[in-house]
């Protein structure tokens, strides 16, 4: 083992010894491959790890213990909505009827899943105030691309080919401008107003016959409701453009604000945020998109349809020629959608409204507790998250947001999102979610107060943090300059396999 430090784990390749493992499937002789021409066969066996099952289990259990997770502690990662993931949702997705259903199974074999998907579409349409929903997108960014490609198809269907720009506020998630580029549009970045909201005048000045769409995150990435939304949406539609809402922050407003009713033409919903499907260490999620009347014809296929006799089916190939087409293979990330459905049914309409209330209540409470400890640039009531800043702390002590974040790890917390949004200096975007108890919120605020005190008393302690984590700060420069992206020293398995 080349690792020092007793909490680290050797790679699975270092654990490998020829001859270990096996006995999972029967061993057919090599003759079964004789019918395949030799030049079509692998020239040497893959050098993959050979480990026994007990070693495999320890490997992954030990690795899991190096992770911080919602199941282990408070994870106030702003804009990511790291709420509790109910265990019944995991059970549900694993039910054999759901998990073993082939994506091309004829409709008559898939009635349970199709009904679930149809009901989920209806629920998401109600929550978003939209006319129709596609469940196909695999993630929020994938939903954005779906939405903006529909916008493109809409303008083209009207013979309006001059609309080449998408307007995005400078506080937006990076996915928004990246999506616009992928969909073939030029991104025009619009500066935010001093109060953190969209600058309606700046938008008005930029809107015109070249504008295809405006992408707005509401509540904004600063955790604020866009107070001048009506004016903005009117201006967008007057200019003949469409309004897209990044629904990453929907967890704040369920039952109190519906993007479709407000006049947005499309919205994506991150079910791994608002509807509590687990984040999985980076994914999978799902990014259903709701649309208004204008974009309905362009929804990707296949849609889930209910027949007059109450049975369900998937749209057939070519059934709706106005569709933008497929965004992926098969119907969608159904296993994720089963979890979201279970969550929605567990909460019901009233429960979802309470989720938003409690998320907003918790955020405002924590914001209040941190006021005076850190800068809190926007004093008005926040939604489900808020921005704090270490700008004054940095001026006073030289301690940056990064140092505070790393020190939080020593106190047993996952740091908030840092240096985002880009519009606030030394930003920390803090999202407690509705899942955290009062005691947790109080303890977090206390930890933050202690860290700020340490910044004055012992700044080196913070510069060097974290101290109590499996590894300490990493050499990211060398990682990027001399990328080591795969284990090179894998030993070969015996080839060909012994009969």
């Amino acid at each position, binding site marked *: 083992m080349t690792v020092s430090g007793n909490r680290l784990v050797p790679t699975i390749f270092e654990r490998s010894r020829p001859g270990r493992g*096996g006995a999972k499937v029967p061993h*057919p002789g090599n003759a079964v491959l004789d019918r395949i021409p030799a030049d079509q066969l692998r020239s040497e066996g893959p*050098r993959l790890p050979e480990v026994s099952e007990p070693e495999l289990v320890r490997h992954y259990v030990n690795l899991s*213990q190096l992770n911080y997770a919602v199941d282990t502690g408070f994870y106030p990662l702003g804009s990511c909505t790291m709420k509790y993931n109910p265990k019944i949702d995991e059970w549900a997705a694993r039910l054999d009827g759901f998990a073993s259903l082939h994506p091309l199974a004829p409709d008559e074999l898939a009635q349970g899943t199709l009904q679930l998907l149809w009901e989920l579409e209806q629920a998401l349409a109600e929550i978003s105030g939209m006319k129709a929903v596609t469940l196909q997108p695999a993630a929020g960014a994938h939903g*954005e691309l779906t939405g903006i490609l529909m916008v493109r198809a809409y303008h083209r269907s009207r013979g309006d080919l001059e609309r080449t720009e998408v307007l995005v506020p400078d506080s937006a998630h990076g996915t928004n401008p990246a999506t616009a580029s992928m969909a073939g549009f030029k991104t025009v970045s619009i500066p935010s107003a001093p109060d953190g909201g969209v600058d309606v005048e700046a938008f008005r000045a930029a809107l015109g016959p070249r504008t295809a769409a405006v992408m707005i995150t509401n509540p904004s990435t600063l955790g604020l409701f866009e107070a001048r939304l009506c004016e903005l949406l009117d201006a967008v539609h007057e200019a003949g453009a469409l309004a897209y809402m990044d629904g990453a922050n929907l967890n704040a407003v369920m039952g109190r*604000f519906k993007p479709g009713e407000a006049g947005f033409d499309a919205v994506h919903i991150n079910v791994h945020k608002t509807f509590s499907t687990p984040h999985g260490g980076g994914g999978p999620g799902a990014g259903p998109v709701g649309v208004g009347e204008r974009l309905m014809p362009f929804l990707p296929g296949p849609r889930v349809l209910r027949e007059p006799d109450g049975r369900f089916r998937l749209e057939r190939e070519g059934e709706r020629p106005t569709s933008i087409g497929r965004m992926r293979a098969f119907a*969608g990330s159904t296993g994720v959608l089963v979890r979201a459905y279970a969550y929605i049914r567990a909460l019901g309409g009233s429960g979802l409204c309470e989720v938003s209330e409690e998320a907003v209540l918790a955020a405002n409470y924590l914001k209040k507790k941190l006021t005076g400890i850190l800068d809190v640039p926007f004093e008005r009531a926040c939604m489900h998250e808020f921005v704090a800043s270490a700008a004054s702390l940095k001026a006073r002590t030289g301690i940056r947001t990064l140092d505070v974040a790393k020190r939080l790890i020593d106190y047993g917390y996952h740091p908030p999102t840092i240096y985002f949004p880009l519009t606030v200096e030394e930003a920390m975007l803090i999202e407690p979610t509705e899942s955290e108890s009062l005691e947790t919120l109080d303890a977090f605020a206390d930890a933050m107060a202690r860290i700020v005190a340490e910044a004055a008393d012992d700044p080196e302690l913070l510069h060097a943090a974290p101290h109590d984590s499996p590894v300490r700060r990493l050499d990211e420069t060398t990682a990027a300059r001399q990328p080591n992206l795969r284990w090179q020293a894998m030993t070969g398995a015996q080839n060909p396999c012994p009969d």
Partner: protein
Amino acid sequence: MAYSPHTSDDRTRMLEAIGVGSVDELFADIPESLRAHGLELPPPDTEVELSERLRRLAGLNRVDLASFLGAGAYRHFVPAVVDQLLLRGEFYTAYTPYQPEISQGTLQTIYEYQSMLAELTGLDVVSASHYDGATATAEAALMACRATRRERVLVSPAVHPHYRQTLATYFAGGGVVADEIPLISEGPAVGTTDLAALEALLNDKDRPVAGVVVANPSFLGLLEPMAEIGRLAHAAGALFVAVIEPVSLAVLATPGQYGADIAAGEGQPLGIPLSFGGPYLGILACKEPLVRQIPGRLVGMTTDVDGRRAFVMTLRAREQDIRREKASSNICTNQALCALAAAIYIGALGPHGLRDVAALGAARAAELEKALVAAGAPRVHSGPYLNEFAVRVPDARAVHKGLLARGILAGLPLGDVYPQDRTLADALLVCATEVTTEADVAAFAAALRAELASTDGTGPASAAAAASAKGADR
């Protein structure tokens, strides 16, 4: 409210601390005209009610038939250890490893996944994951365009139809064009890439080609002349994109071996449940010189300040949160947990076990071919296949429907996905894997015999079956 830790006393204390009289005051920023008033959704289920509801819905699906359906998503045995480990909350309730000091578990598993897939594909760099095989293929094609600064790709029609449709959707924005490469229409190589036609397409000097996209095994199950295709692509300055199936790479020639620059494919066969289409695992791999063009996260090895080995997301300047509109893709959330499932699956089986899965599928498929030929359904093509192939039956849709009533899911009627190709109108695409049993094969053959005898192509049974089959179209 389910899952809430807040008592009414807690809420009161929070409101007092904030200095407001009610939660409503916190929503005062929402303009009056935009306010919604609740949700018209069913009332909450208790967990007892919810579990019953979900069990009932799952029970409405039929997963008990003898299935020969593959077509891009495959039934495999998944060792019990895979799901047990996936249920570690430390893995599945974490997010993207933005804070590497407390994410080494996720980071190391991704690094190990990248290493395993590099070994399987014979390539150097593997992205941490994409959404699925279709989007990975579209990203691979876009990557070829960026790398060559060309705007035309050639795609085989024997790449999965859903992948080609996805690629077309992705291309709609960017001014990139996808042209089809003809397949050979007769002779021993029928159904595989027409090399002469490919060469002619590549030689169009006015329309230089960025990438050639071919699947091996193809959607039709056939093995393609990948080395020759690669040579032709490279001679024209194009990149070669192989669409792969990862289990097959335990026995078949790798993209690295036949000279592909990029590999894309669906990782579902590596221990991921069918789940009606997802969540799956988009595999994207490339040769080292293309590393700065590959979209999606990458994890690299480095050291911490104490010199300990550690892992971190790297080459981040390609990504949307850093580069915004100049990023290589908009991808953010990926399929990390599915990549973890694949890594555990590979670890559980080992190199010999993975080879056994692929070889046993091939063996079962050969038995299936023999049984179906004997029952009156000969193969459509004659070239070699691994574990999936097309057979000819009169009126494929009606036969498929009739077999369904006999408890057999007889693959996919190819006419559904190749409506223009008359040679495939009466074809069924069938597959076998290591979970296909001899009894399944015998039942399929017997049911097919009975079905062909009862319908005889013209009788009333066939017409009735054809009429009712309309509801089951894809």
